[in-house]
């Protein structure tokens, strides 16, 4: 009996199905080597004490520390308000620029400047600006809005005003980013579906609500997830403006414990904290996808 070639080799169909896996294999291997191992290492180290004995003590320390809860609530506040504000303003700007008025491309260019600045530069800029003798007060004085006696003490406010200051700075930095993503999405939708909306009786607002936003949803989801993830990780700007422990947030506490306190005991606390941050980030992302109904859609399409 002879064995045909097709019996020996995989069927054409099976081979075709394997192609995507083969294509992502290098990425998977790269990630396992340079990302998965360090992560597993960090996670396991977070469950050991200084003597290398397995323990929950690092986590117990964190959960007993009131600063952790302050950091958690501060972070939550920042995320909710900064992401909401950023989204609304960025969406408004994207809609405006999408109208292609005269000079819209110059406006787009100007709007992108904050995005081009590294976080440290943003921090430096605002900390020098907001200082009592900073450029913002000088600017206001030059134009006579305030006098020497009524200078704003931007950085000396209570918790609420410091939180809002961070939200404003964060919004200033990332609105262009969100706007670009939304603008790309808007330009992908095409004018004609909106024009059809106008012809078939829709007002501007109805078109926005029933056509533009639903069609933009995949883009909105992407933008929101990216923003939620990075908003949970705000820390550098806070440290540059207020130093450590003045306005505790999650990642700032990670850096503080892991890097600043200079004892192995705290390093391990920092590791445990970073594991918690990772869990919170994933949970927030999944929660958002659930609430926005993105999973359902995928099921509907596959089903």
């Amino acid at each position, binding site marked *: 009996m002879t064995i045909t070639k097709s019996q020996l080799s995989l069927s054409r169909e099976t081979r075709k199905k394997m192609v995507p896996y083969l294509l992502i294999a290098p990425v998977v291997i790269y990630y396992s080597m340079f990302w998965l191992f360090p992560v597993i290492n960090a996670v396991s180290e977070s469950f050991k004490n200084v003597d290398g004995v397995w323990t929950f003590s690092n986590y117990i320390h964190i959960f007993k520390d009131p600063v952790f809860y302050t950091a958690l609530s501060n972070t939550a506040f920042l995320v909710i308000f900064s992401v909401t504000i950023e989204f609304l303003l960025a969406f408004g700007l994207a809609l405006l620029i999408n109208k292609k008025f005269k000079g819209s491309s110059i406006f787009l260019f100007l709007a992108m400047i904050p995005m081009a600045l590294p976080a440290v530069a943003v921090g430096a800029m605002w900390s020098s600006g907001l200082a009592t003798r900073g450029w913002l007060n000088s600017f206001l004085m030059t134009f006579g809005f305030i006098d020497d006696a009524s200078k704003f003490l931007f950085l000396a406010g209570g918790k609420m005003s410091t939180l809002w200051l961070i939200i404003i700075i964060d919004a200033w930095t990332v609105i262009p980013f969100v706007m670009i993503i939304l603008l790309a999405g808007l330009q992908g939708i095409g004018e004609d579906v909106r024009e*059809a909306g106008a012809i078939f009786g829709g007002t501007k607002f109805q078109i926005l609500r029933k056509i533009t936003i639903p069609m933009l949803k995949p883009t909105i989801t992407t933008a929101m997830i990216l923003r939620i993830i990075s908003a949970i990780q705000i820390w550098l700007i806070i440290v540059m403006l207020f130093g450590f422990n003045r306005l505790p947030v999650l990642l700032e506490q990670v850096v503080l414990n892991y890097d600043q306190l200079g004892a192995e005991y705290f390093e391990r606390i920092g590791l445990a904290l970073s594991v918690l941050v990772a869990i919170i980030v994933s949970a927030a992302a999944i929660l958002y996808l659930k609430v926005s109904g993105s999973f359902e859609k995928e099921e509907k399409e596959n089903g």
Partner: protein
Amino acid sequence: MATLELVDLAKRFSKKVWGVKKMDLEVNEKEFIVLLGPSGCGKTTTMRMIAGLEEVTRGTILLDGNDITDIPSRNRGISMVFQNYAIWPHMSVYENIAFSLKLKKMPAAEIKQRVQETADMVKIGELLKRLPGQLSGGQQQRVALARALAVRPRLFLMDEPLSNLDAKLRVIMRTELKAIHQKTEATSIFVTHDQSEAMSMADRIVIMKDGVIVQIGTPDDVYFRSANMFVAGFIGTPPSNFFTVKCIYNNDKIALEHSQFTLDLDPKGFEELKEYNGKEIVIGARPEDLLVVPDSEAVFTEEILVVEPQGSHQVVALNLSETIVKMIVSAEAKVKPGDNIGLNFNRKRLHFFNKETEDRIHLKNEVE
């Protein structure tokens, strides 16, 4: 059902670019008007101005005698089928068709009935629950059509609605659209660059070129009484053949002298050519108005270059002094490349054009 009137309508996009230079048009109640012209002649721009999607630079749009030039699209009582359908991908077929009815706050039961009725009319009654992504191009086209019909518009606009369909479906949809129009009697404006589509569907055809109208008329008007050489060359497949001739007018005989032949005419019925005596004019001859005749009766003889069988007839191409001349012969005629055939003209059906202006030279007793 309504009348539409465009008065001195124009659209300028920028200093040098005019979308439409000047449009004057009256559309009667229940009429099916086709805007026909080559790409870039301003058909879409005209439609968009009527629909309110484009601001006009100059002129007025009257619907039922009311000036709607500055009224927003949604209040014009107009509906439109877009070239690439523009149906909403996130809404089911049902929701697409019901969209405008819901915005009009029509009672739910009535909406349901109207949607079903309209969907049945365009044969997508079974597909109401589907999303557009799950439909073929032809079905999407029908959704766009149903959405536009459901409104019971005063004016129904279609911008090249069939151009994305394959050739066979396109011909089927022509017939269906015409049947739908006879049923709904909605005043309609249909845009196309396909002259055979225009001929087969229109009550009247509006032929445009470079942002202006060159002729308005019934399919017979534009075919048998083309207003100028552009129309004669644009309408019909194959298009008209043109021959530049010198007109020698005598009271007992007209001689039209071409470099390759001389065509004699009896002056009776061609008196208008008198003023062109001694001048050059252009003869336009439709492919079916060139006749194969025995050599003794021929105006000229020429060798056949190629034969294109079409089933119902054959197209024969000749090379007459470096210009291709195309004519139609019956399916039975025994013709093959290389044959020499004698040709004559169906004189009553010839078109004559002024060589300078390219406009038609009108004769008193033109064929009706």
